[in-house]
């Protein structure tokens, strides 16, 4: 369960201070599918990075379960990211020189698994997203939808508690968008994940259990 208390994040940008998050307080129960809607450029990625233990708040606290992410050392945050949090990015962020299978395996590298187990789990994750036959393909040889499936397989192969998706369908056409959202929903149900999707697409947001809208740092629950 995520607990954000009075989280404020400011940046220095060209001699002026930009407030990306302003005193945000938010609670996200385990197993919830949450959609966060945010105006473009409003700092939604900042919130997602804070939830994903990539960023610390300027003030306030962020906790995942018993772990207070806002006060942890970098090395400990890396362990949290490696074990408990999966990421899916708008631009897929696959490593261009690695095959689909190898891209999925990168998520298991920090866990110190044997090569055989790493390969087996990566192959299973690819099969779960319907890409068993594309394991040896490099990203450039895959369509946008396939690349995002590989990214989802990479995020889920370590069996995380939380899946954070930043505009996961932002680069996809409508048909592929529905495929990907269907896949994410299926995995969320099957694995009991906490799924947090940041999107500007209302069609995507409407599929979530809970929707919040943040404007000028204030959280508003949407029905």
């Amino acid at each position, binding site marked *: 369960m995520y607990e954000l208390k009075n989280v404020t994040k400011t940046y220095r940008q060209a001699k002026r201070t930009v407030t990306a998050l302003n005193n945000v307080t938010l609670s996200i129960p385990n197993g919830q599918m949450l959609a966060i809607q945010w105006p473009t450029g409003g700092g939604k990625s900042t919130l997602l990075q804070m939830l994903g233990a990539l960023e610390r708040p300027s003030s306030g606290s962020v906790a995942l379960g018993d772990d207070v992410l806002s006060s942890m050392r970098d090395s400990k945050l*890396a362990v949290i990211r490696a074990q408990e949090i*999966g*990421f899916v990015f708008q*631009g897929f*962020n696959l490593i261009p020189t690695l095959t689909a299978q190898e891209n999925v395996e*990168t998520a298991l*590298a920090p866990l110190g698994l044997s090569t055989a187990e790493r390969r087996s789990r990566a192959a299973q994750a690819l099969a779960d997203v319907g890409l068993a036959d594309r394991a040896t393909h490099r990203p450039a040889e895959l369509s946008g939808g396939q690349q995002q499936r590989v990214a989802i397989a990479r995020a889920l192969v370590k069996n995380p508690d939380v899946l954070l998706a930043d505009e996961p369908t932002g680069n996809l056409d409508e048909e592929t968008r529905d495929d990907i959202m269907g896949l994410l929903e299926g995995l969320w149900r099957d694995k009991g994940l906490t799924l947090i999707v940041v999107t500007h697409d209302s069609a995507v947001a409407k599929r979530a259990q809970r929707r919040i809208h943040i404007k000028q740092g204030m959280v508003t629950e949407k029905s």
Partner: protein
Amino acid sequence: MFGTYLLRELTNRRKQTAIIAIGMALAIALVIIVNAVSGGVRDAQASVLASVYGVGTDITVSQAAQPPAAGTGGRPAFNVGAGDGATAGGARVINQTRLVATRGTATFDSTALATANSVSNVKATTATLSLENTTFNGTLPGGAKTGSSGGQGGAGQGTAPTGGSDGAGGSSFKVDSFSVEGIDPAGAAVGPLTAVTLSAGRTFTSADVGKDVVVLDSSYATAASLAVDGTISIGGTDFTIIGLVSSSSSASATAANAYIPLDVAQTVSNLPGVISNVYVQANSSANIAQIQADLKKSLPNATVNTQADLASSVSGSLGTASSLVSSLGTWLSIIVLAAAFLLAILFTISGVTRRTREFGTLKAIGWRNSMIVRQVAGESFVQGLIGGVIGVVVGLVGIVAVNLAAPTLTASAVATRAAGPGGAGGSGAGGGRGFGQHAAAATTNIVLHAPVTATIIVIAVGLAMLGGLLAGAIGGWRAARLRPAEALRSVA
């Protein structure tokens, strides 16, 4: 994962890998070739020096010559008195021999040998006395003055000169000289005779002390039509030829034309109890500096040279090659190596910058900084290693090419028996010839052979790996400094 990722990066980013590897290969090849040529030049210098100083000589002790006192010393002179020579047919036949210390060579007390021997870590010592035997032989007009010259401005009148070599008052004479080295007949471990091969007869034994026996350089013996069991006059004394020697190295000549026992040399040259050189062999090359320092302390007036000092006395194109290799070659290697390192570092940093998104993503999915650094450093290290291996191959090809071309260098090895400045002339002779006056010289042609050693190959590959690691460490440090959130934000 590390190996797979590394392999994929190297094979899929071939251009970067090729540029770094080629840069490193060129530098490594240059280092290997320069080092091999340098080794060849050193070997050639050692060969030339051995002909003068003998094999195994680590240090020589000599003394700077002093300017001759006015009215004494200077160039050798032959004074013909009115009654000298045998008169025959109106001509006088003159035959004079001088055996003196070689010009520019200072002699010093032979106790220096014992002093050198007492220095710690000295394995062997021997002393020599370098002499020059000069013979004046010819015919001069006989009897008293046979004509009178006119006074200043006046026309002289007198009878036509008679006698001499042409019967008309002319003269004819020859001046012949050869070098003589007085050596310890029992000092076989170190000294000039260690660099020779016996070609006829025998060499010295301790039983030859005090005997008028001589060992000749075979080239000189051939030119002078001398053979074993024959005799040769040295300083007016007839010496029995017991053996002929030639240089062990085909590249150089022997140090002297004739070798005689040291005690005999001192007697016939009328230079009792003096020597001109002490040859010192260290028990380990690591002790040479210490021995040199101790000798300088014990013999404050002496000039103490190591082989490295002596190498500077080799002149000719070998000397030029030596300075070229040691200055231009070394600096070129350093510059190219630095450029290769810089190239590797810049390309690695550029690669890290280009892969900001990649490293940000890896950090987001839980990769620790150490894993990222290891990945970047590993890639650079292998690129350096590939460059090193290619460089070794190119370097070996270069060395083979040098050895096939076999450039011939001329070398003049001159004994650095320090000479003093030219002094005031004695009667009828000028002073010494000043600095650069040399006692023994061996001018020869040497074919340069560039040797390859396993050590230099290991060092070269090590340098390539070091370059790769350095580039990797800097690139990895930059990658580690990336904040994952910023890296991902930069993508957006």
